[in-house]
């Protein structure tokens, strides 16, 4: 990349309920039922907006995880949650995750456009597919379609939703769709929003997922553990956008970044360690098992990873993890060749699936600036360890540094989510 990049980054916050670490609920600032308390969610929206952040994201899926030690599996439905928060705010974008696997496209199009209309054009849809038997059994099915089938359905689902939104926006009337998966003739009667219709985001790192991203997504919520891979994927998706006749600026790349911040690096590490130690031991091992498709509890903690563990998964059709995540993890392990224990401890600071950052606000600003100018990102989707205080640090300490460096807005000049994205820095020339 030649020349210094101008313009500003995009900053989102992935609201992993109370924080990405299981022990986040133990913060003395939180009541035990904070995860379902409207006042908590209102506070999150208000704080993010105070920092002039671009958007808040909510992950989701139609199956239950064990909430015994961790609030992350406690999932208020995103369009309801963000509908409430949007009513309490004016400018922050609200991105809801919803699955194409277990929804009706007309109903979802109607609901998301309604959220967008009511929020004044601030809604986004993070398109995901759903995997796993537990989800399928909530819909009377024995299992979910194989990975490729899920993406075939997703592609048609997304195209149909977009057609319905466009017809509502331009008043063109009925949409007639006779496809492989859906057969629909109808008209959305929800009025268009101030940005016409929701912004589309995509989070899958598989080849089909990236294909969808290049074709239609306006934001990609990616997982990048190294800058080299991030730059490679950035160029790949931007290139796919161009191949599809779109401007590379039409799709913004936003990797996740797990955060523990402190006023010194030592304080940040101590905070991270205390939070990890207060959480269940199974968190790290369980996460790793799911991510690489291998039961990590069988591994010798003080030995390096065996080669068969690092090899490609047996069957991409049946591996339940994310291909993109696995790719990032394997690359990281091959780079540093740690023992299993060292890697698990390392992921405390460097990330588990998503990249991690443990340090000071100044160091985080350096990191963001470095990846931005290297052409690895258009922004980050920040994931604080504990949101109730961690988000305030981002707003009160990180954002001011970025502003001083000319990397972030001082106030909202745009008022829709698409407007926020369009106002950010253009794609640097390669």
């Amino acid at each position, binding site marked *: 990349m030649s020349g210094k990049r101008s313009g500003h980054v995009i900053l989102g916050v992935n609201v992993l309920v109370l924080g990405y670490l299981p022990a986040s609920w133990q913060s003395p600032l939180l009541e035990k039922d904070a995860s379902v308390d409207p006042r908590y969610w209102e506070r999150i929206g208000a704080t993010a907006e105070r920092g002039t952040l671009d958007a808040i994201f909510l992950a989701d899926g139609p199956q*239950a995880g064990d909430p015994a030690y961790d609030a992350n599996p406690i999932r208020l439905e995103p369009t309801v949650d963000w*509908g409430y928060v949007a009513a309490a705010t004016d400018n922050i974008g609200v991105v809801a995750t919803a699955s194409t696997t277990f929804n009706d496209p007309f109903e979802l199009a109607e609901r998301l456009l309604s959220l967008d209309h009511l929020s004044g054009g601030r809604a986004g849809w993070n398109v995901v597919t759903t995997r796993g038997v537990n989800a399928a059994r909530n819909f009377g099915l024995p299992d979910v379609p194989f990975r490729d089938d899920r993406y075939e359905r997703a592609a048609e689902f997304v195209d149909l939703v977009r057609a319905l939104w466009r017809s509502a926006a331009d008043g063109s009337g009925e949409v007639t769709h006779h496809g492989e998966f859906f*057969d629909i003739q109808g008209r959305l009667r929800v009025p268009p929003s101030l940005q016409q219709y929701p912004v589309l985001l995509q989070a899958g790192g598989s080849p089909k997922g990236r294909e969808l991203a290049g074709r239609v997504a306006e934001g990609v919520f990616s997982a990048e553990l190294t800058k080299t891979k991030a730059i490679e994927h950035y160029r790949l998706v931007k290139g796919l956008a161009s191949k599809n006749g779109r401007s590379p600026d039409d799709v913004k790349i936003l990797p996740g970044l797990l955060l523990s911040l402190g006023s010194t690096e030592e304080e940040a590490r101590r905070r991270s360690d205390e939070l990890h130690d207060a959480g269940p031991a199974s968190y790290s091992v369980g996460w790793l098992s799911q991510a690489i498709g291998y039961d990590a509890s069988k591994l010798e903690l003080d030995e390096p990873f065996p080669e068969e563990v690092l090899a490609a998964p047996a069957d991409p059709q049946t591996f339940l993890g994310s291909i993109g995540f696995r790719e990032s993890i394997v690359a990281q392990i091959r780079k540093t060749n740690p023992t299993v224990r060292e890697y698990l401890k390392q992921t405390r600071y460097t990330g588990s699936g998503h990249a991690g950052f443990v340090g000071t606000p100044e160091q985080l600003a350096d990191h963001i600036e470095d990846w931005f100018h290297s052409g690895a990102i258009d922004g980050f989707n920040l994931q604080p360890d504990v949101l109730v205080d961690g988000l305030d640090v981002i707003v009160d300490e990180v954002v001011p540094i970025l502003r001083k460096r000319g990397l972030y807005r001082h106030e909202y000049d745009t008022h829709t989510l698409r407007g926020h994205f369009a106002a950010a820095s253009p794609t640097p020339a390669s």
Partner: protein
Amino acid sequence: MTKSRRYLGLALDGPQLLELTSDDALRDRWDGLPLAFTVLGSDRIDGSGPAATTLSVTSAAAHLAYRARHARVLIAASPHYDHPYNLARRVASLGHFTGGRSGLLLGVADAYAPAGERADRAWGNANLGPGASLTVTTAIAAGQAIRSLELGWPFETFIGDRETGILVQADQIVYSDIEGVYEIAGPLNLPGPPSGPSVIGVLSDDAVDHGLDLRIGADGDAVIIDVDDVDAGDADADADAGGADDEGVNSAGIILRHNAISLGALLNEVDGWLASGRVREITPGTDLRRALELAPVPARPSDLRPAFPAPAPHAAL
């Protein structure tokens, strides 16, 4: 015999819902009314839709949960293009945000649903199975499934013990294992609201055995009447409004509907009814179950499978 006065509800169509969510003054006026509840998007299921414009009712209810802190609402939905699992998540979520002032009214079919090859089946357009027939039996089955799912994770399971590191008594979360019209394992991925299970009603003119909280329809717990058909000051209003003589069982509630007029005009009609003294006021702000004096929901069966193991205090790493 002195008749006990019926409560007053309101049914809003799509355009009125849009007005309610876009006009602050009208919304505040509506929020302060001593109505039993308002059916949001009633024209979806009561045979009077579709209108030219509308909103998703759960999106509207979520918006109103913040902007209107007193009104009670029933969201009008059907199994037509909403699966009970997905709908249960939204109903339970709304219960958290409204403090129990929200509930669900299920009808057979949604007037705003599109046509299509599989459109005559409940959940047909999602193309994830054969779907179910569009009948009141399916609507009731959906309501019972949603009830079961909400009961599957009681709010009281939050224990938040920092010493042991246990947040939720997860072994008290159970599978619903629903079979019949729907097969749903559960559990939901959120607890039921602290105010208790959401009020769930079914819209039907037939005296069906629903096992839920209320039936709205002819001779039901409440009846929808069109404002044109009856006047608040009419001495015979009771007789027209769903059975108000001195001997029969009356509907406990009257739900006013007047589609295709402005919301302001409709609220003027409501004011007339309230001023007539023929209906009783219910203080805004209380949750639906208390406001309607509904019976507590029976406890869930005791033999449902725990979804998770009993949590144990975990050792520090």
